[in-house]
């Protein structure tokens, strides 16, 4: 697939959820195919998210909009809240009056849209942390915990659970931790399982990133 160079639909994350911007040159069938693939790849991530469809660049017919809407609801359990048709023209579907609740953990609220989510304690088994941008964790991520971020994940502790950086498809996202010994690593659409057996403890820290379509852990 050539989706990584220019995806048929650009998925942008922001505090209210996600914005879908279809590529002006893509055919409608390509849009549907791409969206279907993305939803099936990362269904859990998009679940219950609010989405805005931005059609300022690529207008669609009403039947096409309703087909995309049906796809989002059925496949991704997503709520389409707004369709932007022009600069001043938008169709509000079912945007809730109150914003989505803040991230599950207490902590200072992000000041700007793209400021990182900071978690100031150890993430124990059963905890799921989702950040719409970068995520910083001051503590360990234990087995059974999940950290999912649209951007990078930075852990000042040991990563032993599951981490998913670049969750909306950003392959340049990286995972930083004092020690990376997880159950599973995910960056964008790539999933890696670390080799069995013990490895030397890093002296400083480790970084996981994508190199040639595989996730590499670099020890520093």
């Amino acid at each position, binding site marked *: 697939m050539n989706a990584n160079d220019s995806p048929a639909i650009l998925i942008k994350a922001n505090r209210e959820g996600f914005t879908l911007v279809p590529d002006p040159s893509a055919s409608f069938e390509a849009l549907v195919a791409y969206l279907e693939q993305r939803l099936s790849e990362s269904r859990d991530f998009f679940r219950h998210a609010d989405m805005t469809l931005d059609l300022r660049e690529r207008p669609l017919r009403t039947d096409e909009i309703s087909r995309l809407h049906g796809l989002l609801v059925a496949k991704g359990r997503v709520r389409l809240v707004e369709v932007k048709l022009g600069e001043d023209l938008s169709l509000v579907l079912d945007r809730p009056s109150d914003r989505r609740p803040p991230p599950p953990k207490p902590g200072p609220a992000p000041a700007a849209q793209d400021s990182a989510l900071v978690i100031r304690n150890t993430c124990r*088994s059963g905890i799921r942390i989702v950040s719409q941008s970068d995520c910083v964790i001051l503590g*360990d991520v234990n087995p059974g915990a999940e950290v999912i971020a649209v951007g990078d994940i930075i852990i000042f502790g040991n990563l032993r659970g599951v981490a998913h950086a670049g969750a909306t498809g950003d392959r340049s996202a990286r995972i930083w931790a004092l020690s990376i010994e997880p159950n599973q690593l995910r960056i964008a659409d790539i999933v890696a399982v670390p080799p069995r057996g013990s490895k030397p403890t890093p002296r400083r820290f480790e970084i996981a990133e994508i190199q040639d379509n595989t996730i590499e852990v670099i020890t520093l």
Partner: protein
Amino acid sequence: MAGKMIVVTSGKGGVGKTTTVANIGTVLAKKKYSVVMLDADIGLRNLDVVMGLENRIVYNLVDIIEGKCRKQQAMLRDRKLHNLYIIPAAQTREKSAVNPEQMKNLCQELADEFDYVLIDCPAGIEQGFKNAVAGAQTAIVVTTPEVSAIRDADRVIGLLEAGELRDIHLIINRMNHRMVKKGDMMSTEDIISLLAVPLLGVIPESDEVVISTNRGTPLVHDRGSKAGAAFHQIAARLNGEEIALDLEQKVTIMDRVKRFIWS
């Protein structure tokens, strides 16, 4: 005077919650404190069997909460220690027969009369767990050196912390020092580094535990039992006595025994 309310929990089943409650309760009672042990595992009661009091049950926890009897009617006195009581769970009811608010009130009332209220929590993290931890100020998390038990302990600690219960202690049960040395079992240090809660004590793996459970007499009545000694130390630490954790020494004693055998 308000007593201490302590819940013993683990997440995973079969790691030794009930044995821990029975032994710690017995040691504290031997130290002349008044102790009541509350079996919160409604539907799967065990504590009465471990204490050997199964045949004396008339009323139970649910009867107290539903107002069918007075607290004193449901309390069973230990066979040896007159200041040790248990309140058995109902075997024919379900966890939903009780709610956290009622448990909290009952624990509060018991704490007014007793020095220690020990609550035996059921396995799992559902209603029964919520009931059991509702009234407690202190939690003891029991785990074994197995990854599955540690994973569940971690989850339970997270839930306790989320529920504003921050006085959490750890007991590692069924530790086999020989297997740790061979690298076949997680060491105490590994477990503590993962769970990050203060350690109350380590109980060595032993057949004596099974035997005492089957006989219905807590292990701590036996003199010269290693696991019993570990429970004595744990109860003393829980009681605020300063007893050093002799993790290192245990290894050296083992070493000495080994050297003795080898020579």
